[in-house]
């Protein structure tokens, strides 16, 4: 039986990549040291912050909320609150919301829940159905990702947040990295770092990923030890995403060659450096969406484009004509995509 590399007690976790083993106590110390090192290295937080933790109720985001809430007790200038986006996915989100409620109420954490139905007008289930009826080419994860990011930024700003922390772990990051390599989308890869930006827009709230260097296996152990993982729910749409296959592939690779995931993360960091030297990602100047006024990478934000394609958002001829040239063209293209087929 493996022994803790620090105290010699029975180990609960063996890092096959480093060969180090840890008992429960020293695993938690290792975990905390690793996350705090990432936070320092990438200057995620200043001495005075209102950190809005984006929580789904799943084990990773619950672990992040638990971690930052406890850490904030030792940092007088920090306030930690929680934000949950309820997409409206039947048979899934209602269970994770219960876990979320239990935790924030027991720990007296201020929180906000924002629903797709209230903010977008429809639940994700309804949106997916509408998209299929219109013959739009998108997977459910596209609608979910676009509207969730849009609402996350808007709601965090309305809560007075100075920074949004998300529970993305090393596994999530390297999966996204490979997905974007396959999609040949280098502009997205350059934005995959642990801290968003350098985006300057008065309405944009900085996003950070404190678990950037933590394996998903490690966040899972952290969640189990702290009683944050008491049921497994699976998004019914997840198997439709290419991420599902990429994840399996990377996990099989890691099993054969321990350390492959860390190696992929280093590869991503090198790629970001090279891309920046070539000026990719430099033009990260943000627009203000000509329709909703939210910060956007385009003259019309992706959320408004999708709403137009779905027919959720309708604009009068006069309003379209009044838009600046680039924005008008984007609106017309989105309406055409929605009408096609």
């Amino acid at each position: 039986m493996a022994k803790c590399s620090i105290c010699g007690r029975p180990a609960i976790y063996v890092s096959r990549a480093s060969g180090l083993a840890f008992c429960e106590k020293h695993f938690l110390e290792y975990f905390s040291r690793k996350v705090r090192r990432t936070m320092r290295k990438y200057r995620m937080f200043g001495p005075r912050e209102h950190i809005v933790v984006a929580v789904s109720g799943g084990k990773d985001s619950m672990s992040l909320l638990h971690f930052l809430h406890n850490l904030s007790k030792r940092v007088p200038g920090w306030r930690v609150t929680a934000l949950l986006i309820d997409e409206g996915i039947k048979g899934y989100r209602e269970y994770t919301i219960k876990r979320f409620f239990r935790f924030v109420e027991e720990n007296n954490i201020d929180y906000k829940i924002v629903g797709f139905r209230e903010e977008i007008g429809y639940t994700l289930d309804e949106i997916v159905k509408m998209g299929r009826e219109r013959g739009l080419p998108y997977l459910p994860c596209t609608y979910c990702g676009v509207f969730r990011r849009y609402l996350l930024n808007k709601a965090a700003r309305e809560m007075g947040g100075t920074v949004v922390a998300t529970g993305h772990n090393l596994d999530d990051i390297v999966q996204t990295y490979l997905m974007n390599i396959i999609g040949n989308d280098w502009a997205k890869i350059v934005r995959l770092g642990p801290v968003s930006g350098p985006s300057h827009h008065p309405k944009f709230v900085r996003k950070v990923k404190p678990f950037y260097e933590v394996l998903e296996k490690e966040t899972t152990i952290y969640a189990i030890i702290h009683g944050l993982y008491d049921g497994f729910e699976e998004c019914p749409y997840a198997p439709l995403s290419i991420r599902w296959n990429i994840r399996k592939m990377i996990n099989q690779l890691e099993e054969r060659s321990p350390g492959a995931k860390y190696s992929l993360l280093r590869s991503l960091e090198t790629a970001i450096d090279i891309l920046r030297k070539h000026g990719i990602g430099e033009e990260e100047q943000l627009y203000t969406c000509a329709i909703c006024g939210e910060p956007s990478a385009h003259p019309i934000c992706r959320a408004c484009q999708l709403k137009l394609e779905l027919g959720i958002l309708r604009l009068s001829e006069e309003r379209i004509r009044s838009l600046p040239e680039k924005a008008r063209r984007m609106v017309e293209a989105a309406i055409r995509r929605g009408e096609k087929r």
Partner: protein
Amino acid sequence: MAVKVRILGDGEKEVAYREGMRVVDVLRELSLLENEYVVVRRGKVVAEDEELVDGDELVLYPVVSGG
């Protein structure tokens, strides 16, 4: 002579016990990857090389997130 295995979100299974069996052997018999599950015995997380005894009951927590 069996080890009972409950996989969260995926029901219960049994694996025939043999002398000197370890957690990793159970995972292999069920064709599961080590880095996709955390194994808990009697309420405590155990490492993959932990030796098992006949009649042990394990709970497997999926590492992959559900969304």
